[in-house]
């Protein structure tokens, strides 16, 4: 029998819950950051290599598409970081009640927006 796998249960069978939505988002941002780490390692290598390699990498990162990638990377990073702290608190046994799990979820979203906004204000003003 063909059984549906969990993410595809979400829109049809499960009603929206902040906790499960954020859990899925944690995985997605984790995968995005893993992919993004390739770009960051490539940047380190290009700095060491210099010359043509660095010029190409730099042009790519400074292009509008590169800035959008870095912006997306920063959102994913701050979300995964804040939600990761939430997970560590759960691992230590805190915040399991449904109410506090929902509340910490909204706090994570707010912190993500705030930290991303602060970072890019700093980048563009400094």
């Amino acid at each position: 029998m063909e059984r549906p796998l969990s993410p595809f249960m979400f829109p049809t069978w499960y009603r929206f819950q902040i906790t499960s939505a954020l859990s899925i988002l944690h995985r997605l941002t984790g995968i995005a950051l893993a992919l993004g780490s390739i770009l960051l390692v490539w940047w380190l290598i290009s700095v060491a290599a210099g010359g043509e390699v660095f010029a190409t990498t730099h042009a790519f990162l400074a292009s509008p598409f590169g800035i959008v990638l870095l912006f997306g990377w920063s959102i994913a990073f701050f979300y995964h970081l804040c939600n990761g702290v939430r997970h560590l608190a759960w691992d230590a046994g805190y915040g399991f009640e449904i109410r506090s799990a929902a509340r910490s979820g909204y706090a994570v979203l707010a912190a993500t927006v705030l930290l991303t906004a602060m970072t890019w204000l700093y980048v563009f003003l400094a």
Partner: protein
Amino acid sequence: MTKATSISDTTALRDEVVPRQVRQFGSARDGLREWRLQRLTAIGLIPLSLYFAASILSLATSDRKTAADWLSLPVPALLVILVVLAGIMHALIGVRSVVLDYVHTRARLLAAELLFRAVAVILAGGAVLAVLKLFLGR
């Protein structure tokens, strides 16, 4: 609150609760290693990745000399090596757990395992070499 303390006392964070011998295909002793490494790297990555992100977002679009000078200093060089190693370990454990959830045939699982491990080793090695070159070459 009292309940919370009792949970943290009984979670698998403590060695004593890990079963030393299990029947059938249970995870005797080794099962927690990845779980623990994921949490340890997560804790380390809180300060390390904040430092790295703060530095890189302003450096990513700067000229080469600024970036190279930064990486030739001992503290940034050490911290970047640490953040890359902890980050790649953390990412590999995470990616593997996603693969285990969605890849169900043995051959594909083995292929994914080899691929992601190879990518992780290459990325870590490349990043460490790059930082060492800049650090030692000043």
